[in-house]
């Protein structure tokens, strides 16, 4: 009997690369025949560029997109900067999917409040796309998205045009400070959430962004009366294996790469706060 090596990547090809912001690019990646693997929103994949290394990224496309996977990647480290330097047509290694993904069944029938900051929109976008594709399963959708500046917003046209046009959907955009061409809301995401005064009844809030934003968003949601079970977030940790063995991403006995990265606030409250 022979089992596959879970660390062995498969081949994938970069279809195209789009610059989103000065430091974020979106890569569209396909396997031999379309999707390299089936996945659920919120799951991640390991991308390999040899001999630079491997790093884990959340899949930003929805599983309903059948021809490729999309990754919105911020240039912060060795692998990400190398990925930024590649050209369409380049072959890379990929393995996955990793993690639990968002609880798409559990949140059926609920109103959804998405709160994203900067590159933190990437994992949310997968779920948002999934919800739009299964629109009848979910109630009203509110999307709060903020960035430091208008230039730092990813998927701008999609957010403004496609998402805002969806039925029973509101998009609320904000930037941290005044900018010449910005006519929308100005202020930090957590404050905007408070201002918008969302009501917790039959609602689930799903948030992702920089740690400092998440911290204050959680406080804001708490003040608005959201119970910990109604708040969902997704964590980012250093990972090497993706299969719960290498020892980096554990919170207590829970492995973020395997049992996460999606946790409800109620679950997180039970775990050591080492993230």
């Amino acid at each position: 009997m022979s089992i596959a090596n879970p660390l062995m990547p498969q081949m994938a090809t970069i279809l195209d690369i789009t610059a989103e912001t000065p430091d974020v690019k979106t890569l569209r990646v396909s396997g031999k025949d379309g999707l390299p693997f089936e996945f659920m929103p919120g799951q991640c994949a390991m991308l390999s560029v040899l001999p630079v290394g491997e790093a884990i990224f959340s899949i930003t496309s929805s599983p309903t997109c059948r021809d490729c996977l999309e990754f919105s990647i911020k240039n912060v480290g060795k692998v990400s900067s190398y990925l930024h330097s590649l050209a369409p047509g380049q072959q890379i290694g990929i393995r996955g999917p990793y993690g639990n993904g968002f609880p798409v069944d559990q949140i059926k029938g609920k109103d959804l409040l998405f709160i994203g900051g900067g590159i933190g929109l990437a994992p949310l976008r997968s779920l948002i796309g999934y919800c739009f594709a299964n629109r009848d399963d979910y109630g009203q959708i509110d999307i709060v998205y903020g960035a430091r500046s208008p230039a730092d917003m990813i998927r701008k046209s999609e957010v403004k045009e496609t998402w805002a046009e969806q039925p029973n959907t509101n998009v609320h955009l904000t930037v941290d400070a005044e900018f010449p061409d910005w006519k929308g809301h100005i202020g930090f995401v957590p404050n905007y959430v408070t201002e918008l005064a969302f009501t917790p009844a039959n609602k689930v809030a799903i948030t992702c962004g920089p740690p400092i934003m998440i911290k204050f968003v959680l406080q804001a949601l708490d003040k608005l009366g959201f119970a910990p079970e109604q708040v969902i977030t997704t964590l980012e940790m250093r990972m090497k294996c993706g299969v719960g063995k290498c020892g980096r991403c554990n919170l207590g006995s829970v492995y973020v790469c395997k049992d996460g990265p999606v946790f409800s606030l109620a679950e997180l409250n039970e775990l050591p706060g080492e993230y």
Partner: protein
Amino acid sequence: MKKMIAADELAKLWIRLAEKSTLFLPVQDGPTVLYQPWKDGAQVELEAFNSAISPKDIFLPREETYLHYHCSGQSLELAAVEDDRAVTAFGIHPCDLKAIEMLDRVFMEQEPADSLYQKRREKTTVVALSCTKPDPFCFCGIFDVDPLDAPGADVMAHLVDGYMHLEARTEKGKALLEEAGDLLENSTIDKIEREIKTTDFGLDIKGLPEDLKSRFDDPAWDELYKSCLSCGVCTYVCPTCYCFDVEDYGHDAEGERFRCWDSCMFGHFTQMAGGHNPRPSRKERVRQRFMHKLQYYPEVYNEIACVGCGRCLRSCPVNLDIVQAIKALGGEKVEHR
């Protein structure tokens, strides 16, 4: 099947076993004893307590290459590298074999199984050897290790009065003894009688894992870590530590990817590309290591991830070992406190 061979004939057995497999034995290497592939002339030290590094690297090597890559232009080729050699792990002490069984749960039972580990484990015949004279740091007794018997062994061996007695426990073990059938005679002893005294350092670990569940923020952590030098000795000598890293070696056109040992005691272990580090100081890292042994692992597998081999007690340059930790966390018999 019970066989025996005179201790001074053992070299013949090594030669035989090394013909068809890579034979790992505890070998004197300079001033240390390490499990190494046997070579003619190697000084085998079966009674040494204990090898400086645990024999875990027979199953989880310090370094193992698992893919080769070739790039040309934009195309990339990946080829899996497989290691199919048969292995005999000879002279594994009961504590170390128990530790390997703990690794089995992580690498084989917990999905997805790790094929590199599993293959090596399946290809290895383990000859366990009962202890004769444990050293002052051996404290396997408190972890229910029987120094005279390793239940998971393929062959259980005992050194008694100038003879090594070998009892096959599995099909693999039987095959091994048959392989060397002409060198062996029938064993003359039925049961091994030997009194082995190990220390318990006054520890009482009953209920410790459950107790620690709520003690992530215990003030004991604020003191315990202070002498830690942040080196990786404890994790590398430890038979139950298994953290690893994955790294590439090569240039633009070709090279390889390998996995190698890593240590949760290193500051860079959890450092993210953007600079954030969830375990930024020695305190978090020391807590991670001991909590993993004493609470996280038992929470999943119902057993403390320590076998009392004593290696961290012997090797830590500042004596910050697991016994020190258990004591600091209150796992001591009342009369010792």
